[in-house]
């Protein structure tokens, strides 16, 4: 796991690029790691860029009682039109609604 790169992305506010096949493992780590506690998927969106889809996961740290923590991180996954994107529902079940919206907008499929 690229821990230092993640810390750098948190400090700089720049999106942290993730390969699609690494997405779920990275998400699981970020949600379970006590240092980050990225338990809230604040937003999930996609945007067309250079013939590819950029999928952005806006994460937010949450304390034990749900209070917001200062750390934020954006994960960026670049995929082609016909790619299947791994679903993050296993980590953030609330992501289901967001993924459904993205699928309608972009035609991308999210695999369980």
């Amino acid at each position, binding site marked *: 796991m690229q821990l230092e790169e993640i810390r750098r992305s948190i400090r700089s506010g720049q999106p942290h690029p993730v390969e699609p096949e690494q997405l779920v493992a990275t998400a699981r780590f970020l949600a379970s790691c006590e240092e980050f506690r990225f338990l809230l998927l604040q937003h*999930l*969106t996609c945007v067309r860029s250079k013939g590819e889809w950029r999928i*952005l996961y806006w994460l937010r740290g949450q304390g034990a009682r749900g*209070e*917001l923590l200062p750390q934020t991180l954006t994960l960026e996954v670049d995929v082609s039109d016909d790619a299947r994107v791994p679903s993050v529902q296993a980590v953030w079940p*609330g992501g289901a*609604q967001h993924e459904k919206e993205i699928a309608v907008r972009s035609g991308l499929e999210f695999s369980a």
Partner: protein
Amino acid sequence: MSATAHLDWIGPYDSRLNGAFRLGFEVDGGRMYGVEVQTGFSSRGLEGAIEQRDWSMTVALAGRLDPDASFFGEWASSLAIESLMKIDIPPRARALRIAAAELSRISSHLRCLAMMAREAGSLPVYHYCLRNRERFLDLLENWTGSRFNLHFCRPGGVARDLTDGVLEKAVQECESIVARVREINDLMTYSAVFMERTRRLASLDRAECQQAGITGPMARACDVLLDARADPLGKLGYKDLEFAPAQGRGQGRGDVHDRFVLRVREVLQSAELVRSVLADLPEGSSWNERARGKFLVPSGEALGVVESPRGMLACYCASEGKSTPARMHFRVPSSAGFGVLPSLLEGVTLQDLSLVLHSLDLSAVEADR
């Protein structure tokens, strides 16, 4: 024949529902089971429409996201645009935004409380809530020129500074709502009949709530202290007001009664916030001149997050340096609420359906966009 053909469906337009959506369920002994929800009947293509407008017009359309609390769509999109433009707003504009937001929140919560009171059969409380909501809507009209689609928050500040008499009227209304809330509490909140009916009804626990991404009063009633106003990054300006989110009974679960109580508490909290922010209103301009007229937004992307009366509202905005946004996409709190509706309504009686739906305060218009 579809897999759900055996269900009884109501909606999209049905007096038992609090918006345009369909609800399918099986009924056994007057209780609902196997609940399914269909939304999408109020889709207006709002985000697509926004992406075709120039930057100065986007915010006005973003206000149409939720007709009951239009200020918050305007606020979230303004924050995202300001972040892209790397501009700060004057302290007075920040304070005025908080005042307008809290007045809108009071108005929205009073509507929700009124509808719950009506469904619970407490007509006096229904009328009291609507009467007081009218006063707050009048106040917003005096100040912004509009009751619902305010067109008040703009990138760079607010469209209008306080007009004559608005400050005094706002303070007066926020003081009088305290007495009104006492009436609501006496007549309904802690009445044995209402508590008997609503305690343990459609309850949700903290873990379910967090997993489903539920935010807003629905989450806070389950003791999840998630509130964008209490964000330690403090972009909204509540930091100086020593804001702490309202919370439920501290039992890690929230039912219909908890949601009612929480909104009552938030009405009082918002009134207090308006009083404190207006008592110490900074001097100076309410506008950053860099965002005057038709402005261009540099390339980049940003997220603006606010706490609307229904929960956390986020606006993602991407710019390619052109005259229109490349992408504007909202995270609306009602979407997550519709996601948990099937499990929440499982076993609820048909007579309680409307009461439960109004306690959740979901907006199909907002979810469909």
